[in-house]
């Protein structure tokens, strides 16, 4: 045993355990954050499953034969085994793009199953010639890019598989089409598209998460370092604009964080391309051809969203660190911002903000750090108003925080403000050190 190790370790543990900043930042925050995250994910799974089995399905019967009637009856009977599908029936409808959209709007649903002409004929033929197959055509609307988006499409696969099990293996197959931005894309599986979009759109939340965490750490420690290294006092007596100090800190943090983000993105895209290289070629989808790549305007809006969000996080970090006496305290303080960064970034991988209940939607919109993730999905779907609203909201939030930060830097509070943890009182009227 190392001589003195036990004694020294005890001292270290005492110091750490008695520091309320560490206790809050490292123990209490994760204990609260992860259960909340778990609750949200659980809710997302539950909602997706409920939606899938309770979904409304339009069945367009263009065959009107014996087997098509049997197939519809079979689907309707599934309520007994847990599928609570509401079935709307239409006969003899030619499914053009306009008609598909009209039907979807009429029944307020997102999926259509078409039984094409010749369906009954093919099913009958299958029993003599097993190579002949009947097929149904599935039209699914691509709404968002959450992990559970593909659940509804997979329900159709489940229906077909159950039908095949009952009547004959491989008698029935499906052809899928996806309704993207009001246009039907034949041969495109909605589950595959949302899966691919998902894998691409995970990059944004994770990048935002890392970027914001880097940036707030840099901003917070840079102010605390001035205090810890005793350079702040001298700096504040120089003939310079105090706001220049604030802007200098924010700008340098943005630049360093941006360089970090570029390095991170390069590494991440390499990782992603390595993963994509392993996917069989037949499954490759061209997102650009499907119109699922942001436009130049979309990219501009996304960049702007990211910029204002960064600025708000940095200003918040600078303000919080102004209350810290040293780097360790500053790091503990900014860890209180992390749940607000973590929560939307991770939750929005699993959830689509558009399908959330109103109250939860409000919570996510109110957190400024949700907006880059929301925007990254919205620009793909061409929903620019959501992004513009986000930019306006985050800019307003940033202005308020920046105003508070500039007030703090303009007065003696930058030197004297301290956060007192006994009862979490903010104590301003106290000199930075105990010499009078």
């Amino acid at each position, binding site marked *: 045993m190392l001589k003195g190790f036990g004694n020294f370790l005890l001292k270290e543990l005492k110091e750490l355990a008695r520091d309320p900043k560490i206790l809050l930042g490292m123990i209490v925050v994760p204990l609260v954050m992860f259960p909340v995250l778990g609750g949200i994910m659980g809710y997302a799974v539950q909602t997706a499953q409920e939606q899938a089995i309770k979904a409304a399905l339009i069945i367009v019967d263009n065959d009107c034969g014996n087997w098509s009637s049997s197939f519809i009856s079979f689907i309707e009977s599934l309520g007994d085994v847990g599928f609570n599908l509401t079935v709307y029936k239409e006969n003899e409808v030619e499914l053009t793009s306009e008609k598909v959209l009209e039907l979807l709007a009429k029944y307020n649903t997102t999926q259509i199953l078409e039984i094409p002409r010749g369906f009954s004929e093919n099913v009958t033929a299958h029993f003599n010639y097993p190579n002949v197959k009947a097929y149904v055509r599935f039209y699914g609307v691509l709404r968002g890019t959450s992990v559970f988006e593909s659940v509804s499409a997979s329900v159709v696969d489940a229906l077909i598989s159950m039908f095949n099990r009952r009547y004959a293996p491989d008698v029935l197959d499906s052809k899928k089409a996806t309704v993207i931005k009001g246009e039907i894309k034949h041969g495109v599986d909605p589950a595959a598209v949302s899966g691919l979009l998902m894998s691409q759109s995970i990059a944004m939340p994770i990048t935002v998460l890392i970027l914001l965490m880097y940036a707030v750490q840099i901003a917070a420690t840079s102010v605390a370092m001035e205090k810890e*290294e*005793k350079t702040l*006092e001298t700096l504040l*007596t120089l003939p*310079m604009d105090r706001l220049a100090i604030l802007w200098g800190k924010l700008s340098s943090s943005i630049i360093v964080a941006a360089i970090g983000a570029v390095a991170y993105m390069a590494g991440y895209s390499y990782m992603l391309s390595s993963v994509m290289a392993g996917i069989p070629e037949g499954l490759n989808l061209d997102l650009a051809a499907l119109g699922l790549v942001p436009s130049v305007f979309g990219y501009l809006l996304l960049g702007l969203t990211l910029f204002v969000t960064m600025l708000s996080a940095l200003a918040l970090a600078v303000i919080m660190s102004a209350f810290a006496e040293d780097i360790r305290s500053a790091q503990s303080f900014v860890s209180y911002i992390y749940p607000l960064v973590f929560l939307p970034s991770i939750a929005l991988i699993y959830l689509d903000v558009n399908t959330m209940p109103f109250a939860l939607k409000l919570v996510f919109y109110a957190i400024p750090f949700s907006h880059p993730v929301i925007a990254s999905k919205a620009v793909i779907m061409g929903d620019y108003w959501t992004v513009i609203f986000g930019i306006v909201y985050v800019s307003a939030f940033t202005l308020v925080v920046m105003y508070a930060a500039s007030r703090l830097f303009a007065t003696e509070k930058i030197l004297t403000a301290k956060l007192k943890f006994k009862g979490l009182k903010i104590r301003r009227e106290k000199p930075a050190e105990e010499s009078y």
Partner: protein
Amino acid sequence: MSLAVEASEVVKVFGSIRALDGLSFVVKPGEIYGLIGPNGAGKTTALRIISTLLLPTAGTVKVFGLDVVQKAGEIRKIISYLPEEAGAYRYLSGWEYLEFMVKFNAKDRDEARAMVREAAEISGLGERLKDKTKTYSKGMKRRLLVARALMLKPKLAILDEPTSGLDIIHAYHVREIIKKYVREHGVTVLLSSHNMLEVEHLCNRVALINKGRLVAEGAPQELKEKFECSNLEEVFAKVVKIA
């Protein structure tokens, strides 16, 4: 000509602590004025108010006729403040630190270069100025900071414990530099110190403050005669006891 510093009935309250309690004194242009007092007497608070870092709760402070509350920006152009516990940027070399600091005051590049060269001479750090300041000893760092404060030839240099952490040789060197700057460049110096010998040899006038109030003021010789003491240390002890 206006006074270098004119503090009148200055009060500063931090929560329940009354750090300054009606402090008044004046510093004439071209003199070296020392503030002495026990720990917690209010010396640093007074210097911070004059340096525009803190605002007085009550009373007025003027620096060369400029009010510290109304004209803080103007005052910062003519003062140079050396805090008691000051540091330099760890990842800048001594030379880079001086260059960074001088850019806020110098009118042009030539003046900036001349100031930095002068600071290099004052500091006596020689080749070590090329090293990062994180490699400096406490004494070397202090010499760099004193040089920074004086290279600007401010109208008023506010030096909180200018020789703290310096050995006898370097403390002597710094005191000589301060005297030279006052003599040759007309700089006014307001300093605080715990070193009575330093105050006695350096200051034209001293103010003894205790519990945020001025309790005695005068030239070192006058004070010694008035309190019938052989040195300022005895005066200090006597005055603090009486107060």
